[in-house]
């Protein structure tokens, strides 16, 4: 394990060097992203893939908004779902205000969601942003719980347990588009995804965005530079609330229903995990987190009832071994690429990661087999795993699974030192890593 320490403990350092160096805004990634978003539904044409991509896009906007607080502002919120939820509920009420909605083109609706999310953030932020740290975190938890609880009690606005629903197609047709089809909604959401992501990125480059970082790192110093840490936090908070509200509005458009789950603490917790999984230290981290988490939640859960268990393992091991998240993991390879030494890593990676992957799959196979052995119906001894059907009550499959897993683990262990060495070689330009 010690060898792995060295690989993983300080992924941020070279990356920071990168970040500090590249402050100019390059248009290329944005154009590529836009093209990809346009092309994606032509590759994945079925509605469920589009629905899942919509869900991803909504989660991305929300996670980026959340990271404006956590990653850029250093504020840990346990109740951020309420800002997105309020935006969504407000949009749903607008959808149901038939006369007004009939003259409003649907693509403009998210602006209202954003404004309502921002409005609530202004109210709560007026007292919660006085300090960061535990006070902020606990106020966010308290306020989050209160609003989530009142969502069931105050039926007039939140609709109780059923929530409130509406029909997006009653809006003013937008250049003839009525948003009847999923694909039309997909392009609407994608457009907003691009707009919000760009705006949030640009925000991080504005004076207030830079000062958010400064206040995160050293609030006292920032105060002696003429900035009120509280106001800087407040501005970050309301802008985060604005984009969270946009995510809520996109949710309203996509699902046409808002319920208590849009506000509750579970949703708030999930967005924290999503953001952290992706990596809070990098702007694009939450994007990765949102994609991976949506896949785990929606696609992996089609495959196994134990998806939540795997998700838990994924989170805990990310925090333990890759605190920079997925983005940190990717960015720690940038120096090697930059210095043209990345090719030294390819072979050792294959040698280590391939058996590593088999180890993980083998372990999960064992977990699945135990689960099947214990919980399957009597007489249903057959189970299918990795396209193989076998008898979970026979000894042979168990032996195979255990032997394969153990062997793969052994090979992984044996090859780790080689990987570490290669890693040092690929990164030795900096001379004497600590």
């Amino acid at each position, binding site marked *: 394990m010690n060898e792995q320490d060295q690989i993983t403990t300080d992924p941020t350092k070279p990356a920071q060097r990168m970040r500090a160096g590249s402050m100019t805004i390059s248009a290329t990634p944005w154009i590529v992203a836009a093209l990809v978003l346009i092309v994606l539904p032509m590759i994945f044409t079925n509605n469920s893939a589009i629905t899942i991509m919509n869900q991803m896009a909504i989660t991305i906007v929300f996670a980026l908004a959340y990271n404006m607080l956590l990653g850029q502002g250093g504020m*840990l919120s346990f109740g951020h779902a309420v800002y997105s939820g309020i935006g969504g509920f407000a949009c749903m009420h607008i959808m149901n205000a038939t006369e007004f909605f009939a003259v409003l083109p649907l693509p403009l609706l998210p602006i209202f969601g954003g404004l309502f999310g921002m409005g609530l953030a202004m109210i709560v932020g007026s*007292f919660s942003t006085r300090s960061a740290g535990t006070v902020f975190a606990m*106020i966010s938890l308290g306020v989050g719980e209160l609003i989530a609880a009142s969502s069931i009690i105050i039926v007039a606005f939140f609709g109780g347990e059923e929530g409130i629903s509406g029909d997006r197609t009653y809006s003013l047709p937008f250049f003839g588009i009525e948003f009847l089809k999923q694909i039309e909604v997909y392009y609407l959401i994608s457009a907003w995804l691009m707009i919000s992501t760009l705006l949030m990125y640009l925000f991080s480059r504005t004076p207030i965005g830079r000062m958010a970082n400064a206040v995160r790192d050293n609030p006292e110093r920032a105060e002696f530079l003429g900035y009120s840490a509280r106001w800087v936090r407040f501005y970050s908070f309301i802008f985060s609330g604005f984009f969270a509200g946009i995510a809520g509005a996109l949710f309203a458009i996509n699902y046409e229903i808002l319920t208590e789950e849009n506000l509750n603490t579970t949703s708030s917790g999930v967005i924290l995990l999503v953001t952290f999984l992706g990596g809070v230290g990098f702007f694009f981290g939450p994007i990765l987190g949102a994609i991976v988490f949506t896949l785990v939640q929606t696609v992996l859960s089609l495959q196994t009832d134990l998806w939540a268990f795997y998700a838990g*393992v994924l989170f*805990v091991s990310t*925090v333990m071994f890759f*605190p920079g998240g997925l983005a940190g993991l990717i960015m720690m390879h940038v120096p090697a690429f930059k210095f043209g030494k990345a090719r030294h890593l390819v072979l050792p990676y294959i040698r280590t990661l391939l058996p590593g992957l088999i180890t993980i799959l083998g372990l999960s196979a064992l977990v699945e087999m135990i689960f099947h052995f214990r919980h399957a119906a009597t007489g249903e001894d057959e189970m299918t795993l990795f396209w193989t059907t076998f008898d979970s009550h026979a000894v042979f499959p168990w032996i195979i699974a255990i032997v394969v897993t153990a062997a793969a683990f052994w090979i992984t262990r044996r090859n780790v030192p080689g990987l570490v060495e290669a890693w040092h070689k690929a990164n030795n330009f900096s001379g004497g890593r600590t």
Partner: protein
Amino acid sequence: MELVLVNLIDGLVTGLLLFMLSAGLTLIFSMMGVLNFAHASFYMLGAYFAYQISLYMGFWVGLLVAPIIVGIAGAGVERYGLRRVHQYGHVPELIFTFGLALLIEELVQFIWGKNQMPFDIPEVLNFTAFAIAGNSIPAYKIFMIFISVAIFIGLLFVLTKTRVGMIIQAALSYPRTVEALGHNVPLIFMGVFGVGTALAGVAGAIAGPVLGTFPGMAFVLGSIVFVTIVIGGLGSLWGALVASLLIGWITTFAKSYNIRMEDILNGIGISTPEYLDDNIFRDLWTITSPQIADILPYILMVLILIFRPYGLLGKRDA
């Protein structure tokens, strides 16, 4: 009047149970700066372990052994998980415990399944201790009070009268200084974490039979424990006690008496709107105290944080 007494006893039981959880949490938090989100999960583990042991060796062995196992598990989590994450800062630590809470819940479901466990009060304690005006007080509740009070006294004794306690006390107020004094701080951390989680295990073992032993039991209690220590003041054992009892009594009394929002509003001179059914605030008007009893602690916490950020008895800023 008798009902007040009954409610006081009921609230005391709830409060003391909460205290057993918050005592460990406040110790852990103030020493290590870790908001241990998995604390209630250790409480759940306590209940499940106690149940499992009680199947073979009876309730009492379960009550004795389960907390020890939970404590060892907690110490293990500190040693092999938290200590590693510690170097990355407080937020990753917190998220680690957050993920751990999820993982423990999944593990419990994996091992014991998703159903309620038939974990029952032992026969010896399954009688009515006494009755006040027709309200019976079960002997088990008295037993719970005794256990909690005994633990509180024991904890107080260890913290104020022993050397280890002195070090921990010092670490509560001056965590860095203690480190500088050459004490084996990692070992103290592990010990405190182990003891803290063991206390949660005790709470689980004695609460399992009355509050139910099921995979969601940690979630139900989850954040209320944080609320308790924040209200009480971080790092203050007495604060945790006061806040626990306060919450226990507030929620119990709010449930017992039907205080209606309408009466309060009328009382302060706002008259009920004529057409309540069409009023957008109709849901606010019809709120009653039992309806919001378990939400009151959150309101209390937000108010406390706004007006007194270091809690009722806390010395340090939260």
